[in-house]
């Protein structure tokens, strides 16, 4: 039987099935040979290096302009501190803003004691989720989120020997210092330790006094700052007896060592959780992040102490995490005031470890187009019900919002977008949760999937007008919705989740 061949054009040579199979086989062999000749590692490295060279700018200096008259803030120069610790602020002769105090009281009252079973996202079960999420922070780091240092695991104490009352205690500075062959080896080991302990991103930068709080207000008596590890000494009891406002304020002269290095860590917050913003579920996602911030930096501090170096862990206390994260190469500044990281967008919490160890390879700041995108996007500014986020096209050294004349809570002299924290905090008081709508709506806040990395890279390579289009597309594609009850159902739904690992 003659072989049947399809001939659509008489002038063309026909391709038989045999030829077709030959072509296919040859292609497969060529593909296999090609793939095996380029190892996965080499291919990935080459592609990654090319992309980094094209899209990521590496800076030698801090990539944000800082004016000569910039003054580092004190730890009570923000709305939360002056609200939650209003009495301590008054006791040292500083002013408090009654409106902000009232907002903080409303927030604390609702968040700690209120729930409403008729309101999706604010039910008793959501409240329980929130309580569990914050538990580790509350137990071990206490008021660190509001900026109070030297509490619990974030103690400034640098013991030199084991606690005699504890069977196991590694929280002391070892006598012999560990040495490393190179600065890079030291950086690699420190970063690996941070990852092991739970950090999602980690960078190492030099200590920069510009980003440290210049003074610290801490009204908590030293004896009450840590769990008892044995009976209090007579000196401690004497200190407690004499405790008062004259001892509330400390500065770096009271710090036990001169820090040279700051290790900055970022912790991813749950995507589905943050997507429920504003709700207690969203706040639980933030709270779980705060609990990670209480645990991992302390472990890293103990690790450094066991290397023979002094170390103090910190969450929001000690200094400004955002510029430190930028300096350590973890991300860029943004319109919403938070660091936008390459992998998780703004959906990260930040923490730090201060140490006197400096034989280490420091990271450099990196930018990948976030601030350029922010100039056009404004999705977070649209999402914020209180309009606390600036609509300015360009960042500025000073706040431009309507409260700018009394914006003691804004950092002046750094070229950035200034958020009106007063308006933001008012919403916290109204909602009884810590909002997060700006973060949820940000186009950089995406699940960790390949196609978002691709879109981010394409966007970074494109000029300004494309950014506006991409923002519109982000909305059309259904990302970044806020005040969406469906997202809460989705958070709790077992669909697509495997709890038993099968």
């Amino acid at each position, binding site marked *: 039987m003659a072989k049947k061949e399809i001939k659509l054009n008489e002038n*063309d040579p026909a391709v038989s099935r045999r030829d077709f199979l030959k072509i296919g086989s040859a292609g497969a062999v060529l593909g296999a040979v090609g793939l095996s000749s380029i190892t996965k590692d080499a291919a990935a490295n080459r592609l990654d290096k090319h992309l980094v060279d094209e899209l990521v700018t590496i800076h030698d200096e801090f990539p944000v302009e800082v004016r000569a008259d910039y003054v580092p803030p004190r730890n009570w120069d923000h709305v939360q501190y002056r609200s939650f610790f209003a009495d301590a602020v008054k006791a040292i002769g500083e002013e408090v803003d009654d409106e902000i105090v009232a907002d903080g009281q409303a927030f604390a009252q609702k968040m700690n004691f209120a729930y409403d079973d008729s309101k999706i996202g604010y039910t008793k079960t959501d409240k329980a989720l929130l309580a569990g999420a914050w538990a580790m922070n509350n137990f071990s780091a206490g008021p660190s989120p509001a900026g109070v240092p030297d509490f619990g695991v974030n103690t400034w104490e640098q013991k030199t020997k084991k606690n005699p009352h504890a069977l196991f205690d590694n929280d002391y500075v070892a006598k012999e210092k560990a040495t490393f062959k190179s600065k890079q080896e030291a950086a690699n080991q420190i970063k690996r330790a941070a990852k092991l302990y739970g950090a999602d991103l980690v960078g190492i930068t030099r200590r920069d006094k510009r980003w440290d709080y210049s003074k610290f207000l801490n009204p908590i008596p030293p004896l009450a700052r840590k769990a008892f590890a044995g009976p209090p000494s007579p000196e401690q009891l004497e200190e407690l007896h004499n405790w008062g406002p004259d001892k509330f304020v400390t500065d770096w002269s009271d710090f036990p060592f001169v820090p040279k290095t700051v290790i900055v860590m970022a912790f991813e917050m749950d995507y589905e959780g943050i997507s429920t913003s504003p709700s207690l579920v969203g706040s639980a996602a933030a709270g779980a992040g705060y609990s990670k911030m209480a645990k991992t930096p302390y472990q890293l501090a103990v690790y450094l102490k066991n290397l023979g170096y002094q170390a103090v862990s910190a969450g929001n206390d000690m200094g400004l995490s955002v510029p430190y994260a930028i300096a350590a190469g973890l991300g860029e500044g943004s319109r919403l005031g938070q660091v936008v990281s390459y992998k998780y967008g703004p959906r990260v919490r930040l923490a730090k470890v201060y140490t006197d160890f400096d034989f280490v390879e420091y990271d450099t700041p990196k930018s990948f187009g976030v601030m350029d995108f922010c100039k056009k996007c404004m999705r977070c500014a649209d999402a914020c019900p209180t309009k606390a986020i600036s609509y300015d096209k360009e960042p500025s050294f000073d706040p431009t919002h309507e409260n700018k004349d009394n914006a003691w809570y804004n950092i002046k002299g750094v070229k950035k977008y200034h958020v009106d924290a007063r308006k933001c905090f008012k919403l916290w008081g109204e909602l009884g949760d810590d909002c997060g709508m700006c973060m949820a709506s940000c186009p950089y806040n995406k699940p960790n999937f390949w196609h978002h990395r691709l879109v981010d890279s394409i966007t970074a390579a494109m000029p300004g007008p494309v950014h506006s289009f991409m923002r519109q597309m982000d909305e059309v*594609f259904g990302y970044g919705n806020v005040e969406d009850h469906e997202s809460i159902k989705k958070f709790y739904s077992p669909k*697509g989740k495997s709890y038993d690992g*099968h």
Partner: protein
Amino acid sequence: MIFSGIEILFFTLGVITTLAIGTTYYFNKKLTFTAGTWATLGLGIFLLIFCIAWSCSSVLEGEPRAASMGLVVFGIPGLILLLLGRKLAIKKPISKQV
């Protein structure tokens, strides 16, 4: 769960890409594509494969609306380009009237 979905997706994409390249090559042998036909078919195939990749990934990440929009934004132009490419491929050159 042996496969999370993303592995199956990319394996399938590999199969589809291989078939698409093979089929295009096969018809090129028969019909001899012009540069315009190559460009139209190539872009159409790329968009359709990207549409499958995008939409399946969006379903896997739990964003069904993004998946639907992916079908519209990448799938429809891909289909149109493929049909146009087919039309260009089978179009006979106009012979001169004697």
